[in-house]
């Protein structure tokens, strides 16, 4: 009986360490990546990138092509009509 207990304890320890070094190790790497993406430094980088893109767009003659412009116009009109209907 006691050998069973000792072996169980050792096996439990082995499983615990293996779990951490395999599954939890991978999980932690993913968590770290998500944490890095959502970090305040990264958000700052994204914000700066968006700002740069907007600045570039302002200097261009056309931001969107004709087809997209018509599509967006129709989309806005549809939304506007639905809002009026509600009122």
């Amino acid at each position, binding site marked *: 009986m006691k050998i069973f207990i*000792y072996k169980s304890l050792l096996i439990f320890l082995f499983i615990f360490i293996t779990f951490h070094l395999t599954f939890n190790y991978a999980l932690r790497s993913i968590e770290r990546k998500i944490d890095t993406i959502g970090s305040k*430094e990264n958000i700052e980088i994204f914000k700066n990138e968006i700002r740069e893109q907007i600045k570039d767009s302002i200097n261009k003659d056309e931001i969107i092509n004709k087809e997209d412009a018509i599509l967006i116009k129709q989309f806005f009109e549809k939304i506007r009509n639905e809002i009026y209907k509600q009122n």
Partner: protein
Amino acid sequence: MKTISIKLLDYCHYIFFIIFTIIGFLILKDYGFNIDETFTRKSGLYWLNYLADFFDLTNISEISSQKLNSSDDFTIPWSDAYGIIFDLPAAIIETSLSLNEPLKIYQMRHALTFLYFLIGLIFFYKILINRFENKYLSLFGCLLLVFTPRIFGEIFHNNKDIIFLTIFIITIYFYFKTIDNENYKNLILFSLFSSIATSTRIFGIIIPIVFIFMYCLSILSQNKDLKKIKYIFLYLLCYFSFLFIHWPYLWEDPFRNFFNYIFNLDIFGADIVYFFGKFYNSALVPYSYLPIWIFISTPILNLILFFFGFYNSTKKFLLKLYQVDKVKVEYDFWNNKNEKKDFFILILFVSYIIAAIFLSPKHYNGWRIFYFFNFFIIFYSIFFISSFINLKKLGKKIFLYISLAMLLLIINIYKIFIYHPYQSYYFNDLITKKIKNKFEVDYAGLSGISFLREILKEDKSSKIKVSVNSWYALWRMKELLPAKDRNRLEFTFDDKNNADYIYSNRIFDVDIEKSEKYKLDPSFKIFKRYIVDNVIIYEIYTKR
């Protein structure tokens, strides 16, 4: 002449302790101020005030309240959950001696930290004597501990981790005494120090768990030990009673506060740590974090001896597992008291390693919260030397081994000398110069006061504008300067570009590779770098 030498050898431990105490008090003032000290000082004053109110001591309450209100400039969340074993006595001394000058207050605290460590060192010597019954080996163990640069550098200012190391050592000593002589006195003292260890650092809670585990193993071997269950109940009763009595944090709502303490550990410490050239969320560091830190910042001599000692001890007990039921012995894992002590140390160490690597909710800068691992490192070092001496017929080779060990010990002493007073930032020679600077160095902020003193000495201007380009509360150091120097200093934290000098201890709260927070104006150039053993401690920038 021979008699004098023999007498000197007989009293070598006394000589060592006296010399060490004298050296300690002589160099005490060289050390800078730990960034955590204002925090722990406030904790002490808070509890002194609480107790003074509780026991209706109006005078003390007024003084402590006054002091408490003037000590609030924290960049991390305040918590009243810290144990009081150091902070309260420090606050009592500060109040009763009417210490009001900040420099004097912190020097008193440094002296007290050193005294605590000294007590711990004496108990460490007693543990080694108790286990190995060899005065010279025990003394060598104390030398190894003292000449571990990171320990040597911390014993004057780290009033959390060094205090825990001390309490931890005393607790283990009383456990050994309990094994030697299972009487109520030893058991009660063991439970008392176990409870103090728990309130000082949460890791202390593992000691009672391992103690109970050891008892379960002894029952598995010998059913007659069931009769000793009264000792376990007494231990637990005393443990929880002492925990409650000595820790006022638990007085109002013991269970809720205790669980709050356990489950809110992640509010302390920095949010990010710099490790191997990368910034990590301190709750998501790689599993290699602690082993690598230990490997690169522990002296090579200690590492070699530890690995052999730990290997020998583990092998010995694993082999016993194969012999269970084959060889008839009283207990499965130990045949005598010394083996029981070794087994306890092994289980305790393995539990701590697993808890620290896999279960720790957060890692602080460096591995300072695990500095008590040095106890295990030295214990196994002495374990190895002891078994080596007992097993081998060394003959003339003994002088070779002693010379080699002494040479490596002298290297440690040399490192302590060149790092002074920054031994806390020691790295061993297993890593290159380039790698040394890929880790956090001055996280305790010891260099802040040295920087201010240096600038005030070198720059004779009537007004010196100073700023900081790292995550560091430099303003706390100002009050430690003489009044005439304080008046010459002007901090321009919100307007770095206007500063004459910018200080950086290279500790950051954001990833500086991505963030703009610590980007300096290009007109600022490095004016000076304080480098020890290729490790950059701090930098000064100026426009001039």
